[in-house]
């Protein structure tokens, strides 16, 4: 019973390794993961959805082929390799972005909420805010590749289906600009499967991106649970998985609610 009631009261047990309550320990890790996952999802959605739409719009054009080949590569790319390559080329060769971490170690961010983008703004440190963004780009990109590819492919196929329907032909026949036909009429109707995929992928990213976290020195929840597994720290493993499962369910709930907002035919009573 304690196992069931404890978590509701915020008691997630005590770590065997460090002897401190998991509910206290898990917070910073979770926040680090959420920040990274959100950025990754923003990158994945913006690029993935647009690539999918344009591919469907200009089906069988060079853009379509290139985008879908890139999506295929993105889907099958080993993340650790991609991450190391990003570091090597973008940060070391081109000297554009930092390789690891969440902030400049020599000028660390004072953690308040644990979401550094918010913390830096709360502290009024705009320079640190940009520093944090710079640190987010590479791991965000690495983490975004797989969801981006999945979203692009899903958007494309869903859009293709919609664009063959009669109301699209009508819209075009009445002389509407193609851009609005695609982005307004077609996309809205193609959105449901895309939103589903986005929801599932967000849940997966929150579940921990162990490889990305390891390579980019990101203190996230994936690493936290992975370490716990290696040291047989059962309370941490259990509670960590519980928290992730909870988030996963919540995201899916949000997705279900979004259906109603997207499609007026769907109503929850």
């Amino acid at each position: 019973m304690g196992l069931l009631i404890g978590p509701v009261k915020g008691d997630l047990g005590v770590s065997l390794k460090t002897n401190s309550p998991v509910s206290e320990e898990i917070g910073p890790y979770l926040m680090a993961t959420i920040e990274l996952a959100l950025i990754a999802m923003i990158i994945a959605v913006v690029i993935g959805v647009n690539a999918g739409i344009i591919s469907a719009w200009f089906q069988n054009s060079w853009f379509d082929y290139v985008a879908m080949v890139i999506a295929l590569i993105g889907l099958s790319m080993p993340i650790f390799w991609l991450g190391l390559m990003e570091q090597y080329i973008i940060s070391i060769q081109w000297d554009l972005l930092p390789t690891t971490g969440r902030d400049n170690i020599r000028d660390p961010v004072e953690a308040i909420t644990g979401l550094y983008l918010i913390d830096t703004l709360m502290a009024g440190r705009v320079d640190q805010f940009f520093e944090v963004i710079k640190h987010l780009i590479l791991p965000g990109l690495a983490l975004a590749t797989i969801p981006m590819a999945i979203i692009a492919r899903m958007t494309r196929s869903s859009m293709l289906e919609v664009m063959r329907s009669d109301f699209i032909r009508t819209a075009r026949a009445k002389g509407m600009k193609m851009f609005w036909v695609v982005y307004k009429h077609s996309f809205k109707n193609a959105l449901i499967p895309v939103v589903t995929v986005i929801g599932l992928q967000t849940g997966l990213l929150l579940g921990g991106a162990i490889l990305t976290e390891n390579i980019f020195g990101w203190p996230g929840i994936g690493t936290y649970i992975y370490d716990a597994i290696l040291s047989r720290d059962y309370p941490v493993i259990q509670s960590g998985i519980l928290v992730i499962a909870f988030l996963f369910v919540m995201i899916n709930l949000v997705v279900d609610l979004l259906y109603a907002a997207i499609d007026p035919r769907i109503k929850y009573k």
Partner: protein
Amino acid sequence: MKKTLALLLTGILALSLALAGCSSSTSKEKEDGKGGSSEAKGGVLIYGKGGDAVGLDPAIVTDGESFIVTQQIFETLVKYGEDDTEIKPGLAESWEVSDDAKTYTFKLKTGIKFHDGTDFNADAVVKNFQRWAQSKDEGRFAYYASMFGGFEGDESHVIKEVKAVDASTVEFTLNRPQAPFLKNLAMPTFAIASPDGIEKEGDDFTKNPSGTGPFKFKSWKPGDTIEVVKNDDYWQDGLPKLDGITFKVIKDNSARLNAAIKGEIDLMDGLNPSDISKVTGDEKLQIFERASMNVGYFAFNVEKAPFDKKEVRQAISHLINKKEIIDNFYESTAEPAKNPMPPSVSGYNDKVEDYDYDVEKAKELLKKAGLEDGFKMDLWAMPVPRPYMPDGQKVAEAIQASLKQVGIEANIVSYEWAAYLEKLQAGEAQSFMMGWTGDNGDADNFLYTLLDKDNIGSNNYARYANDEVHKLLIEAQSTADEAKRNELYGKAQEIIHDEAPWVPLVHSLPQLAGSKTVKGFVPHPTGSQSLVNVSLEN
């Protein structure tokens, strides 16, 4: 339509340029600001490591990732030499040992304060030892239990009493002599913590530690960074040279190196041997080599024929080309071994001359043993990479090939790791590959643990029993005089070398990389050291 696309692309490009532009300018300002201050002070060193600390109370942790941090915050009564395990004064400036080696009297340095402002004195030492000995909690104070034979009241407990004679004198009375007693005291885990802090913080002491060390604890972001800052009241004048150290966790070895190349971290451990050329090829970086504290070996079960014959063991010792093994499987990050313990451990006998690689000599010896036509044997190889043996299977294959030259057919055998150890302990292997990493840097921890007849059925997997060696090792255990002990261990190594129960293969050398601005850093064989003498210079 193309216009929209073009507009979109231009927008993205403009945004990224703006972002890159403004952020790089801020970072430049930062560096300039820091550069100016680092000359005046000492700068903050960023140390990249592979895992987060478990805790910062040295008494309750057992892992190297914790000790590298606690070594900055805490100090021990006696300490190891800079790159060996010779005993040097630490918080104790001198000590005397009674003739029966059962009483150690330490004279403590005076005027030292803990970071929380309380005094370091004999009482503090006594309280620390009482905390460990009276805890009777093997889960928490695991190292204490294993190095000092349990806790107060246990029959095997080594320390009978710790007494404060006066404010700066502590007397340890032992139940029985323990030769590596001083070396044990130098282990990072037996550092003296502030009794006040322990009392006040309770279980949280491990998150808010207070010792006498050159650096004070500042902050800990779990899984990310630990910051320590200069202790301005440190008892050694002019030290530490740094203003602070930040320990940053980057798990992946290659990613950690990328961060070092980029200059985000100043020093890193766990360099992949295959990445060494990247460091040597970079004019801003340098390699640091940690002296070895381990030995990887190939051993015979001396109870099983034909390895009960000394000549056969010696013959095989002549057949193994250690240099080739090191070049091929260690990327040259190891030194050939000739004794069962590494040179960094005091008592190492450098006069022993290794068996040279000589097939003809081997044939001669085999002929003497009546085995000139060769024989069949089992060669056990470990299934997992170990610090002293990155690829046991491959090394076994190399040995197999060498043995073939004289007609010995070796059949490579392997089991899952836990089963492998169990079967070795039971003496089932005919010949096998193994290794050992030292606990406290004492010769006893190698020679007695691995090759004394008392430990057959435990860690003496070769089942080697020699009464003369046993006598020497036991005598060394009850002698407190270091010079005398080293002499005894030297003799034991000569006998072991002649009898050749093992072919010591290598002592592997862990590699570290750092910026060329890092000065005064000497990696210690135990894996953790104080960075009190390190500085950053341009």
